[in-house]
């Protein structure tokens, strides 16, 4: 689960616990004397690992610096690499993303890039040494679900690294679908933190991820055009 959008730390805590997450992502921003390091204290208390992200970064240089600062501040070389093109879409800038990923891999980071649902871009990110790929279902915060399930399936079929569906999840069925399509995990924040009841939605997401994963492993039946009776023929 991500941490963005929660009304306060108490709401975030309840949602994180209900989701069962073991890893959560945090942004890097200027510290102020009043704000302190509250979210870090909370995550330490809950024993949830921290995955810093480069949210808000527009170019490779900015993202690389932010990742290095996060490594220094948090003592982890894992980074959720986010390089977005503009505020309106928050869509990844593919060219800058690959550039930043290459530099961070060379610098020893474990890079988890937020990317589009383009299977070829996912392959390029894997080729430069990313530890996972994190395609979007739809733009950040829209809750529009998985716009192109076939693209996500192509990514999961081809990938040699874990695939994490990141962004666009609106409700539990979207998370279940991501897992049915072969994703290894989902990363979501808004769908939970801005739900009417964040704690209940977090537990719904946990159930959905488990159900979707089980359905993937169980192997769904092929889709047929015509009906097929499930009862024996009448004598």
């Amino acid at each position: 689960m991500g941490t963005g959008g929660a009304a306060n730390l108490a709401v975030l805590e309840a949602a994180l616990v209900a989701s069962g997450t073991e890893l959560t992502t945090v942004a890097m921003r200027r510290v102020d004397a009043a704000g302190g390091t509250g979210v870090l204290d909370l995550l330490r208390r809950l024993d949830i690992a921290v995955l810093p992200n480069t949210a808000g970064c527009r170019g490779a240089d900015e993202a690389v610096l932010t990742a290095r600062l996060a490594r220094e501040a948090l003592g982890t070389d894992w980074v959720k690499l986010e390089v977005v093109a503009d505020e309106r879409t928050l869509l990844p800038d593919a060219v800058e993303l690959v550039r930043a990923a290459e530099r961070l891999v060379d610098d020893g980071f474990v890079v988890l890039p937020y990317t589009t649902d383009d299977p070829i871009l996912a392959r390029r990110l894997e080729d430069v040494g990313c530890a996972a790929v994190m395609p979007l279902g739809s733009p950040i915060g829209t809750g529009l679900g998985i716009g192109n399930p076939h693209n996500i399936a192509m990514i999961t079929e081809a990938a040699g690294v874990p695939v994490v569906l990141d962004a666009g999840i609106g409700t539990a069925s979207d998370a279940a679908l991501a897992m049915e399509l072969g994703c290894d995990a989902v990363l979501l924040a808004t769908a939970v933190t801005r739900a009417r009841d964040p704690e209940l939605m977090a537990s719904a997401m946990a159930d959905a991820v488990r159900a979707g994963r089980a359905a993937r492993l169980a192997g769904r039946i092929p889709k047929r055009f015509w009906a097929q009776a499930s009862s024996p023929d009448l004598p």
Partner: protein
Amino acid sequence: MIPLGVTVNGQDHEFAPGTSVRTMLGALGLPDTGVAVAVDGAVLPKSRWDDELGRGWTVEVLTAVQGG
């Protein structure tokens, strides 16, 4: 003694010459764990926080916040 002008997180401050980065953080009430320091666009590792501030430095002090 000419005070040392530096910009920290967008605000102008003055310190006595010889002030270290670590002392500056304390003087501004900023935490020294869970934060990272950048000077003029490059990371200043913790191992160098006892270095003296340089005149005219642009310093950014970052921490983790909710987001993403």
